[in-house]
C-alpha cells in the first residue's frame, strides 16, 4: 500500500479508509496515524497467531464433539468451543471498533482536523481509556466465571450426556431439543414434572406470603406506641434469622419425627391425644415445611418493615386523624402503600429465593415422604428433584435441560423485579 506523502487535508476518503481497514491497521496507516495503525495491526496479527490453535480446535470441537473415542473428550471440546466463541466475540468487538475508528478519523481529516502527534494521541487514548482499563479485568473475569459455565450448561442440555454415554469412553452427540421433548412426552418425566412444578409454585407463594404476612403483622404490632421494651422484643424476634438455617432445619427435622419428635410427643399427644404424621404424610409434611419456612423467613421481613415504618412521616397520620379516618383506613391507605413501595423489589426476591430453596427441602426430609407411583417425593421442588435426578439416575443432559427451565423462570422473576424497581424510581412523588 503506497501512500502519497504531503499535505492531504480534505483528500481522505472515509470509505476508502473503511475498506482498507478490512485488514485492521491499514485504514489507520492510510490516515497517517502510524502508531495507532501498527498497534492495531500487531494486535490483529498476534490474535490470529496466538489463538489460531485454540480457535481451530475449539470450532472443530464444538461442531463435532470429537471423532475418536477415548482420545477426544467431548466435554473438553465443548468447553474449548465455548472459549473459542467468547474469543471470537471479543475479536469482532475489536474489529468493529477498528472499522469505526478508521472511518471517523478519515472523516475528521477530511474536515481539516490536524493529526495529533504520537504523544498527544497516546495521552488522549489514556484519558479516554482509563475507566475501561479499570473495569476491563473484572469484566473479563466475570465472563469466564459466570457466562462461561452458564453457556457450558446450556450446551450440555442439547447433548446426550448420561451415565451410559459418558466421556472419556464415549463421545457425546448434539441431539437438539430431544431432552426438552422427552420432558413433556415420556410419561414418567411428564407426570412427575407437572406434579413437582405445581407444588413448587404452591410452596413459593404460600410459604413466602406467610413469612411476609407474619413479618408485617409483627412489625406493625411492635411499632405501636403503646408497646414497651421495643428493643428487647425486636432482638428476640430477630433470633430465628440469627441462628444458621442449616442447624434450625435439622433440629426441626428431628422435632417433627412422627414417633420420637418433641412436637408430637410433648405437645400434641398430651394435649389432643394423638399426633400428626409430619414426616410420613405428604400434606402434613408440606404443612410443616411451610411453617418452618415462615419461622425462618419472617425476621428478615420484620426487620425490613420496622425500618421503613420509622420513616413514615407522622404528618400523614395527623392529617388522617383530622379527616376522621379509622385505624383500618390509616393502615390500608397510608402504612401499607408506604411499606410495599419501599420494599417491593426485596419482597419479590424473597419469592425467588424460596422458589429455589434447596436447603430446607433437602435437609428437612430429602423431599420425602414417598408418594406411591411417582418418582419424586411429596415435598420435592424442582431444584431438589433435579438434584436427585442427576445424582441417582445420572441424567446429566436432562438435569441441564430442567436447570435451563428453572433459570428462565427465575430470570422472569428478576426481570419483573427490575421493571418494578424502575417504575418506583420514576414514581418518586411519594
Amino acid at each position, binding site marked *: 500500500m503506497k501512500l502519497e506523502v504531503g499535505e492531504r487535508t480534505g483528500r481522505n476518503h472515509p470509505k476508502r479508509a473503511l*475498506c482498507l*481497514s478490512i485488514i485492521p491497521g491499514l485504514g489507520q496507516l492510510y490516515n497517517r496515524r502510524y502508531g495507532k495503525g501498527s498497534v492495531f495491526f500487531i494486535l490483529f496479527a498476534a490474535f490470529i497467531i496466538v489463538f489460531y490453535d485454540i*480457535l481451530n480446535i475449539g470450532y*472443530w470441537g464444538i461442531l463435532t464433539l470429537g471423532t475418536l473415542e477415548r482420545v477426544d*473428550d467431548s466435554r*473438553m471440546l465443548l468447553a474449548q468451543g465455548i472459549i473459542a466463541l467468547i474469543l471470537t466475540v471479543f475479536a469482532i468487538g475489536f474489529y468493529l471498533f477498528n472499522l469505526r475508528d478508521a472511518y471517523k478519523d478519515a472523516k475528521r481529516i477530511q474536515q481539516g482536523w490536524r493529526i495529533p502527534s504520537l504523544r498527544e494521541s497516546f495521552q488522549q487514548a489514556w484519558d479516554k481509556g482509563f475507566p475501561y482499563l479499570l473495569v476491563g479485568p473484572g469484566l473479563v473475569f466475570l465472563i469466564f466465571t459466570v457466562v462461561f459455565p452458564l453457556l457450558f450448561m446450556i450446551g450440555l442440555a442439547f447433548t446426550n450426556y448420561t451415565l451410559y454415554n*459418558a466421556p472419556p469412553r464415549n463421545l457425546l452427540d448434539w441431539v437438539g431439543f430431544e431432552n426438552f421433548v422427552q420432558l413433556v412426552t415420556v410419561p414418567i418425566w411428564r407426570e412427575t414434572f407437572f406434579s413437582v412444578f405445581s407444588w413448587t409454585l404452591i410452596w413459593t407463594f404460600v410459604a413466602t406470603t406467610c413469612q411476609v404476612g407474619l413479618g408485617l403483622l409483627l412489625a406493625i404490632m411492635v411499632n405501636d406506641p403503646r408497646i414497651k421494651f421495643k428493643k428487647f422484643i425486636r432482638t428476640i424476634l430477630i433470633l430465628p434469622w440469627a441462628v444458621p438455617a442449616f442447624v434450625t432445619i435439622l433440629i426441626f427435622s428431628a422435632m417433627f419425627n412422627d414417633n420420637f419428635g418433641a412436637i408430637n410427643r410433648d405437645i400434641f399427644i398430651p394435649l389432643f391425644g394423638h399426633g400428626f404424621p409430619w414426616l*410420613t404424610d405428604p400434606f402434613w409434611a408440606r404443612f410443616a415445611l411451610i411453617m418452618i419456612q415462615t419461622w425462618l423467613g419472617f425476621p428478615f421481613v420484620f426487620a425490613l418493615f420496622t425500618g421503613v415504618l420509622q420513616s413514615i412521616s407522622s404528618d400523614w397520620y395527623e392529617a388522617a386523624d383530622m379527616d376522621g379516618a379509622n385505624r383500618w383506613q390509616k393502615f390500608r391507605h397510608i402504612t401499607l402503600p408506604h411499606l410495599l413501595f419501599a420494599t417491593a423489589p426485596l419482597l419479590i426476591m424473597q419469592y425467588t429465593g424460596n422458589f429455589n430453596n434447596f436447603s430446607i427441602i433437602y435437609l428437612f426430609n430429602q423431599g420425602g415422604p*414417598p408418594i406411591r407411583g411417582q418418582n419424586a417425593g411429596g415435598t420435592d421442588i424442582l431444584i431438589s428433584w433435579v438434584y436427585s435426578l442427576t445424582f441417582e439416575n*445420572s441424567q446429566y443432559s436432562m438435569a441441564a435441560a430442567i436447570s435451563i427451565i428453572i433459570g428462565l423462570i427465575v430470570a422472569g422473576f428478576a426481570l419483573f423485579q427490575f421493571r418494578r424497581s424502575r417504575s418506583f424510581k420514576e414514581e418518586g412523588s411519594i
Partner: protein
Amino acid sequence: MKKATSLLSSAVFVVTLTGLLTACGPDRDEGNGSASEGSATPANEEQDGAAPEKPEVLTMWVNDEEVQLDAYEQIVEKYEEETGISVEITPFSMLDQLESLSLDAAAGGGPDLFYQPNDRLGDIYLQGLAAELELTSEQLEGYTEGAIQALNYDGVQLGIPAVIETYALYYNTELVPEAPKTIEELEQIAADLTNASADEYGFLFEGTNFYYLYPFIEAHGGYVFDQDGEGVYDTSNIGLANEGTVEGANLIQSWYEAGYLPVGITDDIIKGYFRDGQVGAVISGPWNVSEFSEALGDQLAVAPLPTIDGKNLSSYSGVKGWLVNEYSENQYWATDLALYITNPESALTYFEVAGELPARTDVEIDDELRQPFLQQAEYAVPMPNIPAMSSVWDPMGDAFEFISQGEDPQEVLEEAVQQIADKIALQEN
C-alpha cells in the same frame, strides 16, 4: 450506508475467519481409532514370563484420612525397599477421585493406582477409567471370594480388594447375656424387652433402609437382579416382588405390628438409645465400634447375624479396593503394587493402623469386637455394583416405609419393582 458497509465487512470478516478455521480440526490420522485404546501401550503381561521394565515412580491416590495415609506410608516403604521403585502417595478424597479422573486421566493427569468403593464400579467401567486386570488364580488366592466378585464388573475384573465392611449384631450383655443364634431367639428378646412407652426395645435396626433389609429378604429367596454363572446381572429380572421377598417383608411387617420396631426410626435414634443402654441389640456396621464401646464399655459385644431356618444371613457388604488407571503407562507394575499393598502382611498392618477390616480370609485379627464382622463377611454378598442398583435404594426404602405403616406388602413391592424398572429404563435410554 455506513451501517451497511460495516455490516458487510464484518460479515466478510466472520466468513473468512470461520473459513480459515472451519475446523480442519486436530492434525492426526483418523484411522487409528482402535489403536488408541489406552494410548499407554499395555504392558505385555508376562507373555514369556518377563516383566516389563520397572518405572522409576508409581503414583497412588490414597483417601485423605490421616490413619489411612499413615498406614500406606508404612506399607509402601517396604515395597520401595523390595523393588526399588519409589511410590508417590497423593492424599485425595475417595469421593472426589472419579470426577478428577474422568476429566484429567485421558490427558495424563491421573495416578497409576486409585481407590474406590465397589458401588462406583459401574460408573468407572462405563467411563472407561480402569484397566481390565488379567489376574491368575494364585494371585487371587487368599482374598475373600465375595470381595473379588464385588470388584468384578460384568465378568471383567477391575480392582483388587483392600477392605471389606458389613454389618453384624451389636448387643448389650447387661440386657442380652447370650448372643441370639436364631431369628426366633432374637424375636424372643424383642418380646421380652420391648416396652415402647418407656422407650425400651429388644432389638432395633433401620427397618426402612434396604441395605439392612436385604438379608431378611434373601433368606426366603428374594433377590435384586438375577445373576448368571459368570456373575453378570440381568436387570430385566428383578426378584423384589417374588414370593420370597414378600415373605421377608411379611416378617418385617410383623415386627412393626408387634411394636418391636417403631415407625419413623432413624439411625441417629437407634444409636442414641443403644448408647444409653435402652436397647438389647442393634444391627449396625463396624464404623460404630469405637462410639459404642466408649458408651457401653465391657457391656458391649458383637456377634454375627442370627440364622433363619438354620441358614446364615447374607448381609450386604461394601468393598473398597485398588484400581489401575486405564491411562497409566505402568499398568503391569501398578498391578504389582496393588497386589503388594493388599497382601496378608500389608493387610494386617493396614488393619492395625487404620482399623479397617481386611478383605482376606488368611489374615487373623485379634480384636473381639471386630472379629465377628469378619465372620459375618464370609456369609456376606457384595452389593450389586451396576449403575442400575442406584435405582433400587429409593423405591425399596419407600416401599418399606409403606409396609411399616401397614400397607399390603405384595401390592407395595409390585409397585416398587415397576418403579425400579421404569427408572432403569430411563437410565439406559
